[in-house]
Structures are given as structure tokens and as C-alpha cells.
């Protein structure tokens, strides 16, 4: 086995082993150590993409000296490598961009433990991306869930983040239980936990009429549990508070990465275990499609009503998750690809939005409400540009990642045909209009002249935050202008995943 095939193993084990040590480090060193590990994982993942594209195909890696199906197994292909590099890179930039706010929001005694949570989240994200085993996926779902609670509640001295964390915890623990129930039922019916043999066993089950109800329940449990965790409407109730009260690093990591990890797991379950044919046979793809469309519209409608910038961005996440589920529900291969591309573009966009929103709020004497952010773009130009670019990307303005996303969804809808084509196209059009309402309004607001100039001079954006915002802006533009290579990686990854 060539050495580069150990990269998935290293991407999981490095942060996992490094996390324990972090608890004993002083605050600043713990952040640097966490950042360094994230950078190493990012570098390794980029290397893996290159190796896989030149070497081709995918490979499995046994986690243990006895190998699968007796032990655990990792599996890597171009799609997994792309997502791993995306997750580690965006997490590094989120930590960099939010580091200064982190020092204000958390007392020094708490900061090392926050770094521990970030590193364990990274390890669990990597495990989620690479795992080939449903039970391993469950274990790391648990780690991400608990880390998420810490990331939300960590902001000291605010009761709001505590109540948000409590709401998050209730919803997500119910979802964990449902997911575990689904895995147990599937194991009882098939005797497998590994995805490759499960796929064959599920085909056999689908042919047996006596097992129709259990199979439908398994699909429903797995889809609903991951939809709750991925914040699909109407299971989104924990989202607005959680994203808008967490410290910027936490909000960026939760909205752009943690939620995507569940969606990636769902994608793997839907393509590798429950194949699209079985999904269509139990009518689950229609449910996903309709809930996705409902999410697209409801998320945007609520975002229009919000009077605080960060709550508005949080509600817009609900709409974006709706897009991804709509893609899952579109028949034909293009829907999945469009969803994955949207995950990538949304991850890059949402982390930038939360970091930029925080910088703008700081430049406006800490006022969160939209009406008090009038003219904030003039006080913090870089953050203003980033927020504008992110919001316009959500609308789908060309040259930005969101445009390519929407184009992919339109193409997937046309390719899907049937009754879904007009519904999806209409929903995309209406959703874009709704996006224009709240996104363009916010952009115009932050660049208009303030009615009364603030007396205090605006604080400078710290260099770390500036660097992170700049890098994320470049990434957004790159996704918009140079989308074909990314699309090729996604397509080649999806081709070997099934």
C-alpha cells in the first residue's frame, strides 16, 4: 500500500490524538496548536486530491490489523478528499477569523477546552467523511453533536446562548436516538454495518414484500434523524438561536461544516446503502424533494422578517439546506452533484458571512440590529465587501459560487424531467426573488450613509480576521469563476462512490 493511502487515517487520528493534549496547554498555545493541526490536515487532504486524481479511483483502508468486515474501515475517493480539504481549510479560516473575538468571549481558563472541542469536531468531521461503516458514523455523529453543544454554549455571560444550547441539545439528542434506532433495525434485518455488503443486502430486502415496512422505517429513521441534525425545515427550530448567539468561530463552524457533515453522511447513506432505486421505491425521494422546497421558501420568508443581521444569516442557512435536500430528491445523477456543489459553495460563503457580520457589528459599537448597521460598510470596508459578496452569492449573482450552484440545480431539475421539473424551477425562481428581498436590502443598508455618524472611531479589523476574510472572499470568487475543476472532482467522486 503506498504511503499516501494513509492520509485518511492520518486526517482522523492526528486531530483525535492532538485533542487530548490541547487541554493541558495555555490558551494561546492551544489555539496555535489547533490551527497547526488543521493546517496539516488541510495540506494532507489537498495532497490526497492530487494523488487520487492522478492515481485514479478510490481505495479502502482497514482501521485495525484484522480489517473489514471484522474491524472498521475507511474509504476515500475524490469526493471525500475534496470535502476533507474543504472542511479542514474552512475550519482553519474560521478559527483564524474568530480568534480575537474568542479571546473576548471566553475566559482564559475556558479557551483550551474550546480548542479541544474544535479539534475533536475536526476529527469527527474527517471520520464522517471517510468512514465506510454505519456504526462508526454514529459514534462520530455523537462526538460532533456534543462538540456543537459546547461550541454554542461556550460564550460566557450570556443566558441566550445557554437557552440556545439547551434547545439544540434536545433536538439533536432525539435525532441521535432515531439514527441509532435506524442503524439497529438495519443491522437486525441484514447483519451488516459495513456499507458495501449493506448495499447488496438492502437490494435483497427491497425485493421481499414482507420486509417493506421495516425497510421503509429504516429509510425514514435515517433520513429524518439526519434532517433534524442538518436543520431541514420543519426540524430547524434550534438553528436561528444557535447560530446567532454562538461566538463567530462557533457559528461559522456549526453552520458551514457541522451541518454539512450530517448531509454528507446522508448522501453516503442514500447513494451507497439505500440506492436511489430503493429510495424511489419507498417514495422517500418525493418527501425529501417536497421538504427541501418547503425549506427553501420558509427559510427565506423568515429571513426577510429578521431584524438582526446574524439571525437573518442563520435563517438563510435553513433555506440553503432546503436546496440541498431538493437536490437529493431530484431523480437522475445531476441532483446529487448539484447538492454537493451547493454544500461546498455554502460552506465557503456562510463562514465568511458570519465572520464579516461580526466585524461589522464590532464596527457599529456592538449593535446587532440591522437598522443600527446603516453605513457599517464604510466603517469596516473589507468586512462590508465580504458580507456583500456573500449575500450576493446567496442570491446567485454571476462570478460568485452561489451562481454556479443555482445553475447546477436548474440543470439538474431539467434533467430530472417529469412533474418535478416545473416544481423545482418555480421554487428556484421564487426562492431567488425572496433572497433578493433580504440580501440586497442588507447590502444596500450597510453601504448607505448613516443618519448620525458614530462618535467613537471604528476599531480596526484584526489582521487575522482580515486574512481569513480575504482568503474566504478569494475562495468564493474562485468557486464562481473556476467552477469546472471542482465540478469534475465532484462528478468523478460521485461516479466511484456508488
Amino acid at each position: 500500500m503506498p504511503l499516501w493511502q494513509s492520509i485518511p487515517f492520518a486526517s482522523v487520528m492526528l486531530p483525535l490524538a492532538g485533542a487530548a493534549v490541547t487541554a493541558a496547554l495555555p490558551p494561546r498555545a492551544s489555539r496555535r496548536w489547533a490551527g497547526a493541526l488543521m493546517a496539516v490536515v488541510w495540506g494532507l487532504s489537498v495532497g490526497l486530491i492530487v494523488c487520487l486524481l492522478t492515481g485514479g479511483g478510490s481505495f479502502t483502508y482497514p482501521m485495525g490489523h484484522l480489517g473489514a468486515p471484522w474491524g472498521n474501515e475507511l474509504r476515500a475517493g475524490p469526493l471525500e478528499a475534496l470535502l476533507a480539504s474543504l472542511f479542514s481549510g474552512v475550519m482553519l479560516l474560521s478559527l483564524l477569523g474568530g480568534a480575537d473575538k474568542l479571546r473576548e468571549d471566553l475566559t482564559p481558563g475556558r479557551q483550551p477546552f474550546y480548542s479541544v472541542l474544535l479539534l475533536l469536531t475536526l476529527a469527527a468531521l474527517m471520520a464522517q467523511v471517510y468512514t465506510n461503516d454505519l456504526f462508526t458514523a454514529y459514534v462520530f455523529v455523537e462526538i460532533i453533536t456534543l462538540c456543537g453543544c459546547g461550541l454554542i454554549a461556550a460564550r460566557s455571560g450570556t443566558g441566550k446562548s445557554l437557552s440556545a444550547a439547551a434547545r439544540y441539545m434536545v433536538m439533536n439528542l432525539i435525532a441521535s436516538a432515531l439514527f441509532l434506532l435506524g442503524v439497529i433495525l438495519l443491522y437486525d434485518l441484514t447483519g451488516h454495518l459495513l456499507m458495501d455488503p449493506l448495499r447488496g443486502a438492502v437490494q435483497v430486502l427491497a425485493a421481499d414484500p414482507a420486509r417493506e415496512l421495516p425497510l421503509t422505517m429504516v429509510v425514514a429513521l435515517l433520513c429524518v434523524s439526519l434532517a433534524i441534525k442538518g436543520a431541514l425545515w420543519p426540524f430547524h427550530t434550534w438553528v436561528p438561536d444557535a447560530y446567532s448567539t454562538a461566538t463567530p468561530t462557533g457559528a461559522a463552524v456549526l453552520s458551514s461544516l457541522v451541518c454539512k457533515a450530517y448531509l454528507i453522511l446522508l448522501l453516503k447513506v442514500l447513494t451507497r446503502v439505500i440506492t436511489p432505486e430503493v429510495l424511489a421505491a419507498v417514495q422517500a425521494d418525493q418527501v425529501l424533494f417536497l421538504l427541501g422546497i418547503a425549506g427553501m421558501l420558509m427559510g427565506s420568508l423568515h429571513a426577510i422578517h429578521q431584524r438582526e443581521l446574524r439571525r437573518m444569516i442563520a435563517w438563510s442557512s435553513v433555506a440553503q439546506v432546503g436546496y440541498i435536500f431538493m437536490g437529493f430528491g431530484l431523480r437522475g445523477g445531476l441532483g446529487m452533484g448539484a447538492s454537493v456543489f451547493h454544500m461546498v459553495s455554502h460552506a465557503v460563503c456562510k463562514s465568511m458571512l458570519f465572520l464579516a457580520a461580526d466585524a461589522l457589528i464590532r464596527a457599529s459599537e456592538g449593535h446587532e440590529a440591522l437598522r443600527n448597521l446603516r453605513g457599517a460598510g464604510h466603517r469596516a470596508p473589507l468586512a462590508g465587501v465580504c458580507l456583500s459578496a456573500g449575500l450576493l452569492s446567496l442570491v446567485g449573482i454571476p462570478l460568485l459560487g452561489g451562481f454556479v450552484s443555482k445553475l447546477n440545480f436548474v440543470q439538474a431539475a431539467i434533467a430530472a424531467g417529469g412533474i418535478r421539473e416545473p416544481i423545482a424551477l418555480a421554487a428556484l425562481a421564487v426562492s431567488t426573488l425572496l433572497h433578493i428581498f433580504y440580501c440586497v436590502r442588507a447590502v444596500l443598508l450597510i453601504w448607505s450613509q448613516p443618519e448620525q455618524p458614530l462618535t467613537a472611531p471604528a476599531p480596526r479589523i484584526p489582521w487575522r480576521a482580515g486574512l481569513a476574510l480575504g482568503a474566504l472572499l478569494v475562495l468564493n470568487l474562485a468557486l464562481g469563476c473556476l467552477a469546472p475543476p471542482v465540478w469534475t472532482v465532484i462528478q468523478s467522486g460521485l461516479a466511484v462512490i456508488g
Partner: protein
Amino acid sequence: MKGANNRWLEQGDDALDRLIAERIDSPVPETPAPRPPRKRRVRTVHIPHALYLALALLLCLGIIGALMQTTARLPSFGNPDNPTNNEVSRRYLEQGLEETGAVNLVAGMILDYRAFDTLGESNVLFVAICAVIILLRLQQGEARPDDTAWEPRHDLILRTVGRLVVPLVLVFGIYVILNGHLSPGGGFSGGAVIGAGLILCRLAEGGERMGKVLSFRTFRALSTGALSFYALSKAYSFFTGANRLPSVITPGVPGRIFSAGLIPYLNIAVGLVVACTMYALFTLFRKGDL
């Protein structure tokens, strides 16, 4: 006060948030906002409470019914032809002793065949305790809640029984951990026993004495040391196994105390993490520190 709380509860989540925000959150800003707040009514859809309850009940009953129907259609329990009795469980039973060296096959499964999952599980505990530390551990300058008056200080019965029972509990826990690869038990169960013993010891002897034995620094060193050892040793085992490299870890002679490769040491590591986590959860929730 009680009436006030109920009122907030009845008004729902937003009202609760507002209450918490008012009580804890923000001191009212002195400077006036740049623009006076615009009067605007928030339009929300109010579902009547009774209708909400009825719908929730119906939904729950529906889910219960569907799940019970599903259970009735599962393979019958204990049937030798069930899909779960496949080559995987056969291999565990037939070759588990030879391949892992563990007489207790469960230990062989969770700490050798599927050690990656168990590494994740022990990190779940670590995540939980980190989140609790972030939330509850008192920071420098924060007032320590003075609840010493409520403690059973110098409680003769508790202290006497504690002195009798605690050593036995701890020894039994250590036995369960060390014998984990030979008989039923292992790190999780033994660690839970030790954790319970430590909690009892703290209740009997008081926080000051216990704090000298198991301070926050000791707790941190034990947890991080055990988890790092687990991660690093299994990383070695995974890497050598996947690349078919010769490994220094051998199953040994089954039945001996030093056998079964890494399993006894991993049991000790897991036991330390579980015991420390249980004790720390208890004390953090009570006192905000160890």
C-alpha cells in the same frame, strides 16, 4: 415568583429568551440607539395549546404504532437463520480467542476488532467533560457558591461506612478493569465502579481532603494521558495492520494476565477516563470545580 415563572413558560420560547436576556444578559445600553426603535407588531401564528397537545399526541401515537408494527416484522429473536448470524459473528466466536488473545470475547471485539469505534466512544466522554468544564467550572474572580451549610459535614454514619466501603469499591473496580480481558468487565464497567467509589469518598470525607488527592491538574493529566496513550497506541496498531508491517503487539498466551496484546492497557486507559469523567461531572455540577 412561581407565578411569574409559569407566566413566562406559558408564553413560550420567545418570552423565556426575553426573560433570560433581561435577567442575565445585557445591561441596558446607556447611550441611545442611533435611531429610535420603530413600532412594529411581530406577526406570529399561534397554535392553540390544546390543539398543539392533541397533534403532538397523535404524532407520537402514530410513530409508536409504526415502530411496533416494524418490530413485529423483524426476524424472530434467537433464530439461528437470522441475518445477524453471519460470517462476522462466526469469525468472532471461532477465531476471536486466537486472533485477539482475549478470553473475554466482548473485550476482544470492542478493543481489538472494533477499537476505532471504542476510541470514538471514550472521546465522547472527553467531549462531554470538556463541554461541562466550559459551562460550569468557575473561573478566576467568579464567586464560589457557598453551600457548605447543606453538606453532611462530620456525618458519623457516612464517614464510617465510607471508610469501610470505599476501599472495597475501589479494589473491586481495579479488579474489573485488570481482569477485563479474562472475565466479564473491562474499562467502561470498572471505571464506572471506581468513579462511584470516588464520589462516595468525596461525600464522606468532604471536598477539601478529596481536592488534595484529585485536583483539577491531576484530573487533566490523567484524562489527557490516558486518551493520548489510547490514540497513539491504536494509531500504531492501525498503521502497522493496514500496511502489513511487523508489529510488536502479539496476542500472547490466552488466559494470562499479561496477554491479549494492547487490550489490558487500553482497558486501563478507558477505565481512567471513565472514572475521572464520572467524578468530575459530579463535582463540577455541585461545586463548579474539582
